[in-house]
């Protein structure tokens, strides 16, 4: 899980049975004491592998949306909730956005890319298990995994903060100027999962990044969601072009527009070996 704190923006990404939406009320409270008012809220997630294990308000997307509607202030009046489907009923992208009249600092040149991967190559996934009694701290073992797996080669310019959990699992945050990236891995066979997320310029070549990510995990199934503040989100075509030569075939592509929030494109891919 990761938290990013910018002067006027906060991003929290959590897995497991965390109750992420319960952060909204205290964050609004603390921001208010700093003279800041909420102007935009975006909540996204994929389809849970174990939905029945989730606590309220994450018990269903309907419950999450109800909680969000009741929690965020009324000045965020441009609201939309959507479940973006794929060809598989077990892979949908859930999106809720809410924005105020007052436009926040839109940067139409940037987009956010969220990649979710399952059915990781078991040999590669083994690299995210710690050796028993390795005597290392989480930071030290994380650094070793970052180098062993090639994660440090995704963006060689990034400052990386990494952590290896015991007995397995890995998280890292990358910082390159004001751009972040983050990776989270649960490598256990049978429900292996990895995510990669970054913010980038619509003009940047994401081919190298996607190639490295796929080499590190070799997933059987992958989804890519891109969110662009502007209404001209064509970065998704770049993603598909970069991914398909690497042995993944696109199975679905869904696009939706969110008022004052931009365009979200959700694509799913499966390995040609399947």
């Amino acid at each position, binding site marked *: *899980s990761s*938290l*990013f*704190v*910018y*002067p*006027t*923006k*906060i*991003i*929290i*990404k*959590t*897995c497991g*049975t*965390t*109750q*992420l939406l319960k*952060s*909204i*009320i*205290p964050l609004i409270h*603390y*921001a208010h004491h*700093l*003279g*800041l*008012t909420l102007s*935009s*809220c*975006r*909540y*996204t*997630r*994929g389809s849970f*592998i*174990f939905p*029945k*294990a989730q606590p309220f308000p*994450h018990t269903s997307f309907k419950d999450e949306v109800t909680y969000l509607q009741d929690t965020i202030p009324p000045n965020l009046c441009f609201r939309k909730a959507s479940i973006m489907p794929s060809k598989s009923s077990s892979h949908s992208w859930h999106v809720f956005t809410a924005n105020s009249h*007052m436009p*926040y600092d839109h940067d139409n040149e940037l987009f*956010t890319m969220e990649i979710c991967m399952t059915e990781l190559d078991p040999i590669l996934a083994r690299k995210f298990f710690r050796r028993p009694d390795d005597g290392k701290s*989480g*930071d030290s073992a*994380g650094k070793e995994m970052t180098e062993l797996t090639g994660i440090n080669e995704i963006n060689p310019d990034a400052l990386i*903060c990494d*952590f290896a959990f015991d007995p397995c*699992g890995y*998280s890292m*945050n990358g*910082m390159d100027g004001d751009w*972040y990236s*983050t990776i*989270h891995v*649960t490598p256990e066979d049978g*429900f292996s*999962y*990895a*995510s990669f997320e970054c913010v980038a310029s619509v003009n940047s070549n994401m081919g190298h990044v996607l190639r490295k990510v796929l080499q590190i995990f070799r997933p059987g199934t992958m989804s890519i969601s891109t969110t662009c503040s502007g209404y001209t989100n064509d970065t998704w075509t770049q993603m598909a072009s970069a991914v398909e030569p690497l042995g993944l075939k696109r199975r679905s592509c869904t696009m939706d527009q969110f008022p004052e929030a931009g365009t979200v494109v959700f694509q799913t891919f499966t390995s040609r070996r399947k």
Partner: protein
Amino acid sequence: MAVSGFEGFEKRLELHFFGDDPAMFPLGLRKLDFESLEQVLEAVQCSVVSAVGNSYFDAYVLSE
């Protein structure tokens, strides 16, 4: 409930704020003390395990 492993799929929340006093913006939310962040994360049910920052933002690796 079915036998379950660890849920990998994340929930992601992005919040943007604005302020009337631009003088607050250079640090803004980065002025939140660590204790306040810990209280927010307590509500979420996770905690900070590692942290790093640069001149633009702060990044925290969380438990879970």
